[in-house]
């Protein structure tokens, strides 16, 4: 089966990449200023016993490669040790915060694709009209607006000035969470929507230029049928690739949005860890996010294969 071979090959490549990343992430402990003991003990008053205990726990008396091997074995079981700040297991902390971040990302993704597809197709169909030019100008501004900036603007207008939405927190239960995360999701979606609009518009324009579209209209096929069955089906192929890129951006944007709206998710976790140089936590989150991003990339490739028989034949041949 060609498709299985393709997936296996991609998974192997991912494994190699993950191996490289894990090595770099582990090395951070040694690249950090001060000895590993300094990094791990932080401000805790040290005495020979605590130093000895740490040395034994992290196998600091073993050679570097052995230490990496021991750490890797833990990492493969998703065990990244304990956070220096909270002394709780890193994986537990990450998993506790994952649902909020995933909720936020999916919510923002839905908004992005709705705005991106709707506006992008509209702009392309009305190419060079006033509306199109206005929308293109808006995407240029949108692309230059980072998530934390759109965050404070929406926060001010809809939360401080109008008081329609809560200013912080993630809420409890589905509906409350939906309500709490509406502003964060829209803030997060602005830059991504602009990106999707730009690519959808370009993709649709490229298809509209094709002879088969003109010919279909000439044969008397209705406008809507041409749009949905000829234009959009073909334009979807580049759009699929864009949507996978967007998912990876969302994860990074979520870091900024969670800080802006004081949401206790994975993003604010990694920022807190980075600001207090909590290395085991940084290592754990880095590996988790790398895994998720690589998963999205694989999904994008599979989506291409599913959508486009030409790509399928070329890649699987």
């Amino acid at each position, binding site marked *: 089966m060609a498709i299985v071979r393709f997936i296996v090959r991609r998974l192997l490549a991912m494994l190699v*990449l993950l191996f*490289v*990343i894990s090595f770099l*992430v582990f090395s*951070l402990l040694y*690249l*950090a*200023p001060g000895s590993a003991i300094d990094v791990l003990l932080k401000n805790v008053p040290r005495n020979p016993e605590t130093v000895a205990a740490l040395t034994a726990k992290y196998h600091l008396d073993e050679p570097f490669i052995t230490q990496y091997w021991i750490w890797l074995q833990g990492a493969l079981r998703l065990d990244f040790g304990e956070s220096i700040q909270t002394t709780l297991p890193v994986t537990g902390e990450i998993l506790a915060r994952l649902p909020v971040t995933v909720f936020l990302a999916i919510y923002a993704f839905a908004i992005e694709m709705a705005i991106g597809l709707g506006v992008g197709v509209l702009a392309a169909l009305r190419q*060079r009209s006033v509306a199109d030019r206005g929308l*293109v*100008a808006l995407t*240029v*501004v949108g*692309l*230059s*607006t*980072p998530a*934390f*900036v759109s965050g*404070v*603007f929406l*926060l*001010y207008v809809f939360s*401080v000035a109008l008081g329609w939405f809560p200013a912080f927190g993630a809420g409890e239960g589905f509906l409350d969470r939906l309500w709490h995360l509406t502003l964060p999701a829209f803030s997060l979606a602005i830059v991504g929507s602009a990106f999707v609009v*730009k*690519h959808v*518009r*370009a*993709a649709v*324009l*490229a298809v509209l230029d094709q002879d088969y579209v003109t010919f279909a209209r000439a044969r008397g096929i209705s406008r809507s049928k041409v749009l949905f069955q000829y234009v959009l089906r073909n334009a979807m192929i*580049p*759009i699929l*690739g*864009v949507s996978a*890129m967007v998912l*990876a951006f969302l*994860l*990074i944007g979520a*870091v*900024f949005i969670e*800080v*802006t709206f004081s949401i206790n998710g994975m993003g604010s976790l*990694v*920022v807190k860890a*980075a*600001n207090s*140089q*909590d*290395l085991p936590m*940084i290592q754990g989150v*880095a590996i988790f*996010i*790398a895994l998720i*991003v*690589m998963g999205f*990339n694989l999904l*994008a*490739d599979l989506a*291409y294969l599913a959508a486009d028989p030409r790509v399928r034949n070329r890649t699987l041949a």
Partner: protein
Amino acid sequence: MSARTEVVSLIEAPRTRPNVLVVVTLTILGLIVLLAVFGRLVSPYDPMQQDLGLGLSTPSSEHWLGTDALGRDILSRILAGAASAVVGPFVIALGAMVLGNVLGLLAGYRGGRIDSIIMRWVDLTFSLPGTLVVIVVAGTFGGSYWLAVVLLIILVAPGDARIIRGATLEQAPRPYVEAAKSIGVSEPRILLTHIWPNVAPAAIANASINFAGSLVALAGLSFLGLGVAAGTPDWGLMVAEGRSLLFVNPVAVLAPAAMIVLTATMVSIAGDWVYERLSSRGMSR
């Protein structure tokens, strides 16, 4: 596999007379650059000077944009903040352009082992989310503005290298390169004075994209507390500091936030314009 679709541009056709949008854009950018150099001279107050007796205040005739929690004048801090908003991104865009162009030219022209080594580095950085890499490294070493600048050069240059490699591959088999080779022109000279001018529009357009991207990235890192040192007048840091003051003096947050968007947008438009001009002059054959 990434989707490479045609990029839409605000400036559709090359024009002979200057477009109003372009004039406005270049004027604003010029002002911001002037501020980056002379900002501290024209600011009404010392941007670092605290006035704890005054504390947080809303806009007034003395402090046009009000003051922050420590009584520092917001307008002065915004003027002074132009420096960190312009200098770092400029260094990144330039550094990444030099590094990326040299490696891209080499990879595209020589091919072979050097090409595959450079492309592996490109693949690696493309598969990592750049901002996360900076957060992780800043978390390890302790964040600082110049650490972020150096990291961003390393993470951004592969984009330049990939574009220039592609353009070089297209130029290398052309007769003028053949001709230069046959009369014994040295390889560095072929690359820099023969091939590079033909791929320059792409390089310069990408540098402006990198400038806008780095401006946003650096401001974001400062916002997270991993960029400039606490107390520095910086637009990203001001957004973070003012976030809790949103109820009292929203201008303290919204003004620096607007400056980030304005500057990044203007840079993108200017980059588009430069690209259109260079390519319409027939520099990209």
